[in-house]
């Protein structure tokens, strides 16, 4: 029984850390551009297909394919911002929201046109033996996922808190006008945010596809929406919040799948969100709205 709970916790940690990587993109973009980028989940799909192109179609090595995936996703993320969101910088939030949904469908349709609707099987690029601790069995994918996500989060945290560019990002997210008046290029900062968020989504896409091993154009939608829930759960705009929200969500999902019902697990996940929002609308680690002086 104990082993089984432990296994479920580790499974939850694995899925949750992938959600967390994606949630970081939502929360960073929200912090800087004050918008919910609903096309963010589809970047995972772009990443998964890019990896497939690199490995199966172009016969590139695994490291090169991974690098290519990260670059392509960053470029797509920045391009989406420049083409679709930037012209709407001063538009009402609803217009931006609808545009984001439009971009999401656009990315899905492009991949549908190119790769058709039939799911494509894909063999994991992570071929690591599973590790046994007594009767506890941890798969190689799980280990790699935990290592990659932990390292990514540490690097991101250091970048945001310790570097000049990271501090500038925090400054822009707080006050665009004041940031411009110390000479920060806001457009560049926003582009950088989209690039970083999309690179994290690329990594999430790679880890996700190694787990599920099937490509389809809509594959980014569900992890995308769950990561969005994770970001809100943790407190949208908060980086530690996104990490925590993702992991909490993954564990809840895994435990309810194992011990309550597979069918109900999504309902339980969203139910938790409703409860958290009722009790603490700003999310677990969300800050109270700054009071205007």
């Amino acid at each position, binding site marked *: 029984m104990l082993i089984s709970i432990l296994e479920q916790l580790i499974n939850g940690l694995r899925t949750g850390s992938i959600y967390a990587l994606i949630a970081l993109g939502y929360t960073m973009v929200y912090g800087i551009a004050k918008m919910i980028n609903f096309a963010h989940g589809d970047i995972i799909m772009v990443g998964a297909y890019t990896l497939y192109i690199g490995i199966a179609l172009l016969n590139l090595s695994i490291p090169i394919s991974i690098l290519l995936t990260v670059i392509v996703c960053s470029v797509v993320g920045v391009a989406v911002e420049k083409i679709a969101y930037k012209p709407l910088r001063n538009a009402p939030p609803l217009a931006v929201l609808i545009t984001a949904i439009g971009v999401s469908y656009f990315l899905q349709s492009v991949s549908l046109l190119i790769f058709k609707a039939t799911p494509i099987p894909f063999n994991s690029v992570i071929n690591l033996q599973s590790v046994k601790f007594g009767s506890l069995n941890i798969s190689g994918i799980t280990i790699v996922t935990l290592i990659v996500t932990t390292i990514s989060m540490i690097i991101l945290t250091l970048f945001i808190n310790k570097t000049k560019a990271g*501090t500038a990002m925090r*400054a822009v997210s*707080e006050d665009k*006008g004041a940031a411009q*008046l*110390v000479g920060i290029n*806001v457009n560049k900062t926003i582009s950088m945010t989209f690039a970083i968020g999309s690179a994290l989504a690329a990594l999430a896409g790679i880890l996700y596809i190694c787990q599920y091993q099937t490509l389809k154009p809509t594959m980014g939608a569900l992890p995308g929406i769950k990561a969005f829930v994770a970001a809100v759960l943790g407190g949208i705009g908060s980086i530690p919040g996104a990490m925590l929200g993702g992991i909490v969500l993954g564990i809840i999902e895994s435990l309810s799948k194992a011990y309550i019902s597979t069918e109900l697990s999504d309902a339980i996940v969203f139910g938790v969100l409703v409860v958290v929002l009722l009790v603490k609308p700003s999310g677990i680690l969300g800050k109270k709205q700054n009071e205007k*002086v």
Partner: protein
Amino acid sequence: MPHMLKIKNLNVYYGHIHAIKGISLRVEEGEIVSLIGANGAGKTTTMQTISGLLRAKSGSIDFMGRNLMKTEPHKIVELGIAQVLEGRRVFANLTVKENIQMGSYTVKDSLEGLRQARKDIYDKFPRLRERKEQLAGTLSGGEQQMLAMGRALMTRPRLLILDEPSMGLSPLLVKEIFEIIKEVNKSGVTVLLVEQNAKMALSVSDRAYVLETGKISIEGKAEELMKNESIKKAYLGA
């Protein structure tokens, strides 16, 4: 000699509201010039148009012989105009030190040079040094004003624009802030000052403009304006 800052026939709109109606003003190198006027006269709008946060519909803004009408705000900072916005607008969730560091975002200098620049700011505002590691949002109003000024000075401006530096501060602090403004000016930085506290502003300024509902109604030497009867009545409370 060319003017440092020259604004000609500037018109700024907020949607359909004609906020600035064809004003012209100039600032010469080394001066302290103040823009006084009641709430809603358009002082802040004028200042934010100079720094590029707002865009004018027509007219011209020239700084050191360069037209700024289409220049992006962060480029204007690099050209040498720094602005302390109304309400200070420090980065509340950044530490005092990080706020100061952000001021030198565009400054190209050695690490040693930047360290010296920060030291100069802390020497000017010793209270900021004590609170270096504190989040800026936890500072008092006066300390935030000092931080905003320190941050602006870190950009190494030739022209420093201060929007309502006395707002919400005790009389003693207002005096302190204005002493610092005079010092900054003596060190070679030209100052353009926006104030509701007309008495204080005129007492440190070389020249002044009075803005009334988007138009300049009076302009002249500060000492002459202090004696002007209509100004006394409307702005000096005497």
